[in-house]
């Protein structure tokens, strides 16, 4: 009987192909890039990757080995590559969001020119080239400044800007994020914030372009997305990098089909088919891979500093195919790039659920006591949180929501006598749309800080402007500030104990100080931070010190008047190590609470930089763990990636 069952099971297994075989078998992975945000496949056998840290990297389509790199150098250096595409002749188009240009590179990476687009593109983002015979190699470019989609010919002549109405769904405005062309010349557009994908027939001009299909909505089920930030097309299929669902979706041009590939990475650094926050995807039906040719899909995962390749399936999936859910062991939380500390309460952002989580910090270990908001578009829901603010009593929390382009002020109840999880601790007080902040069109708030007398200080782009808001979110004043002439972007804001305002620029990193005089914000000096690679947040500490996170450098630094005085963190997953830290706040004792986003956790360091604890929504660890312990890897010999030496400390798991 048992033998018969085994035979039956074996025959069934053969009859129904595994999801991996059909949906994308892992081919190779390349951990040779820092921040891969776009990729393209050259049929001649190379995969080119735009690395937003300032490089274009060519990988062999066969095994992912590096063929060449174009690094940042010279007057026309790449600063922040944001998009990449292969033209018919094999030349590469590389858009640079900071240089604000679109470069042409030869197959070997040498610079051959610049695309002089006639269209007014402020911040070029994702680019795509039409491969259809009738398309004439036209180029689609997303303008990051306003989400406009521009079509230009290879000569730079404008084909037009697609009307924004094409991307309205049920009265809601969708903002394009990524583009790709289908083989027949139709344009695929994704709107990551609104979780939708569009198919556009460009017709004979942008003015008569029309939408042929649109699908999406927020959710985990097939046909729904959570942040579709990249698209690709091959054969009859549309591929979508579904970032917060951690998968690549494959559907036809009507949105039909429910196949996805890539398995959600459960632990940081999971690979070999596990996908973690995919940002971009490129797919081809035929590429030279050594001695053979065949289909290939390439996925960019900046969260893992990795590019993975899959051999995709182009056949029809069987009707009964189901995606297997992974074992959730080990996942505690997902923390985004925002944090705020007020009184005894800490607010952190979970980008996957759109929730802001509240910790009570008064006891020895942080205790998760409430959640506020969730993903959605209603007044009490959130899109993408860029910054958090909390008043000094920990009663009011302000969310800078870049997805819905508004500020949202919440209020928490008083601290109860007994600390328990209280789901209804928070209520929405009010919201204020960004377009009412009087800073100009396309306003985005990039950072928040506590001002004087309970005021909110907001750093808004473009400008930038410093906006003072009273505790009821009404404008006290809005004034521009003068930053050094650099391509660096402002990413952080803090008010020091001496009343100085510090604005943090990312790369080259520097702190710019301002003081409010009668009429304006007067510059009061610049502190260069050349040792930091990508400064992400700044917080003020007692005694005139500042706390700055260096995301790309995987470190947090304490800064005094003369520069860096202390640093913590090396790249890794062991306790005390960091992976893409996104924010840090300092408490009244000079300790640093660091949002270790890339490791799905937060860590606290003492005033002298010593590691104290790791915590998340689940457990808190006060005994430092090795990398293998964190990843639950069992080895006979220690892993070379283990932290050494480990911080010494007593304690354990709580």
């Amino acid at each position, binding site marked *: 009987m048992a033998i018969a069952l085994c035979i039956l099971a074996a025959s069934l297994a053969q009859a129904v192909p595994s999801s991996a075989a059909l949906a994308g078998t892992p081919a190779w992975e390349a951990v040779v890039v820092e921040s891969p945000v776009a990729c393209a496949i050259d049929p001649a056998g190379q995969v080119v990757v735009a690395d937003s840290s300032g490089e274009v990297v060519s990988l062999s389509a066969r095994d992912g080995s590096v063929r060449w790199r174009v690094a940042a150098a010279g007057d026309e250096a790449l600063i922040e590559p944001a998009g990449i595409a292969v033209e018919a002749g094999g030349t590469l188009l590389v858009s640079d969001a900071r240089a604000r240009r679109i470069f042409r590179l030869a197959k070997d990476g040498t610079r051959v020119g610049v695309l002089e687009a006639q269209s007014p593109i402020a911040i070029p983002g994702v680019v795509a080239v039409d491969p259809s015979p009738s398309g004439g190699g036209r180029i689609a470019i997303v303008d990051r400044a306003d989400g406009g989609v521009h079509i230009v010919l290879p000569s730079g002549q404008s084909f037009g800007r697609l009307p924004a109405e094409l991307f309205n769904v049920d009265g809601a405005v969708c903002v394009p994020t990524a583009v790709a062309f289908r083989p027949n010349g139709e344009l695929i557009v994704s709107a990551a914030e609104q979780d939708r994908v569009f198919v556009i027939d460009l017709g004979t001009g942008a003015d008569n372009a029309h939408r042929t299909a649109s699908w999406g909505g927020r959710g*985990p089920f097939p046909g729904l997305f959570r942040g579709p930030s990249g698209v690709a097309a091959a054969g009859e299929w549309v591929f979508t990098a579904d970032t917060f669902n951690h998968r690549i979706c494959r559907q036809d041009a009507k949105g039909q089909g429910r196949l996805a590939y890539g398995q959600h990475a459960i632990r940081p650094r999971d690979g070999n088919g596990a996908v973690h926050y995919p940002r971009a995807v490129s797919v081809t039906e035929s590429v030279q891979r050594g001695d053979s040719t065949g289909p290939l899909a390439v996925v960019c995962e900046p969260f893992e500093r990795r590019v993975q390749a899959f051999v995709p399936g182009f056949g029809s999936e069987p009707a009964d195919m189901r995606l297997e859910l992974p074992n*959730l062991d080990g*996942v*505690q*939380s*997902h923390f985004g790039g925002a944090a705020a500390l007020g009184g005894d309460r800490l607010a952190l952002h*979970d980008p*996957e*659920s759109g*929730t802001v989580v509240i910790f009570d910090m008064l006891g020895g270990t942080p205790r998760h006591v409430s*959640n506020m908001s*969730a993903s959605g578009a*209603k*007044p*009490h829901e959130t899109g993408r949180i860029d910054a958090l603010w909390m008043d000094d009593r920990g009663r009011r929390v302000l969310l800078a929501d870049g997805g819905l382009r508004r500020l949202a*002020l919440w*209020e928490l109840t008083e601290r109860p006598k007994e600390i328990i*999880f*209280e*789901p*209804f601790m928070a*209520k*929405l*007080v*009010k*919201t*204020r*749309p960004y377009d*009412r902040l009087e800073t100009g069109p396309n306003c985005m708030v990039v950072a928040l800080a506590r001002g004087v007398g309970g005021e909110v200080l907001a750093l808004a782009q473009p400008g930038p402007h410093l906006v003072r808001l009273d505790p*009821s*979110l*009404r*404008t006290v004043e809005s004034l521009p500030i003068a930053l050094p002439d650099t391509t660096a972007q402002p990413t952080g804001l803090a008010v020091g104990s001496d009343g100085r305002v510090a604005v943090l620029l990312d790369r080259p990193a520097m702190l710019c100080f301002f003081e409010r005089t009668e009429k304006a914000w007067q510059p009061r000096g610049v502190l260069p931070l050349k040792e930091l690679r990508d400064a992400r947040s700044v917080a003020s500490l007692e005694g005139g010190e500042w706390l700055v996170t260096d995301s790309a450098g995987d470190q947090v630094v304490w800064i005094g008047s003369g520069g860096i005085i202390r640093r913590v963190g090396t790249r890794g997953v062991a306790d005390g190590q960091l992976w893409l830290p996104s924010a840090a706040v300092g408490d009244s004792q000079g300790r640093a609470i660091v949002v270790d986003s890339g490791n799905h956790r937060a860590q606290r360091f003492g005033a002298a930089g010593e590691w104290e604890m790791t915590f998340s*929504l*689940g457990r808190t660890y006060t005994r430092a763990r090795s990398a293998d312990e964190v990843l639950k890897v069992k080895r006979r010999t220690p892993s070379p990636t283990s932290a050494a030496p480990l911080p010494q400390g007593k304690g354990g798991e709580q």
Partner: protein
Amino acid sequence: MNWHARWMLPAAVLAAAVMAAPSAPTQKAEEWGSVISNDGSWRVQWRVMMGTKQLSLPEVRKRFTIELRIESLLEPKRPVRAVLVDAQMPDHVHGMNVAPTILMLEGGGAASEGMLFHMSGRWEVDVDIDDGETIERAQWDIGMY
């Protein structure tokens, strides 16, 4: 829904069952309920209407209207530019299955027509008042038990 949200939902429901029951406001027929908005800028009076008849509470699975009188408590007074009315069940993490129609009335009033509470339990009514600068929320609970 990620895993911790999945676990938190039963906890939220349990906590809500303990805490929410006594919080429903009382309102007699022919009277208006009253609430101050969450930042103290507005006084909102409300009543439940079904057709021309005023009810102390809506009836489950029957359409009703919420009529509103909105008064600015700030000096100088702020105008009401727009009003959004919605309802949700926080314990169950969902809202209504319908989208009400909002009518702006003379003298700072509004009516939200086509409201529907499709199940019993604690409903939270949310009124978001837009004065052209900020959009402030007033909210109250209606217990449908």
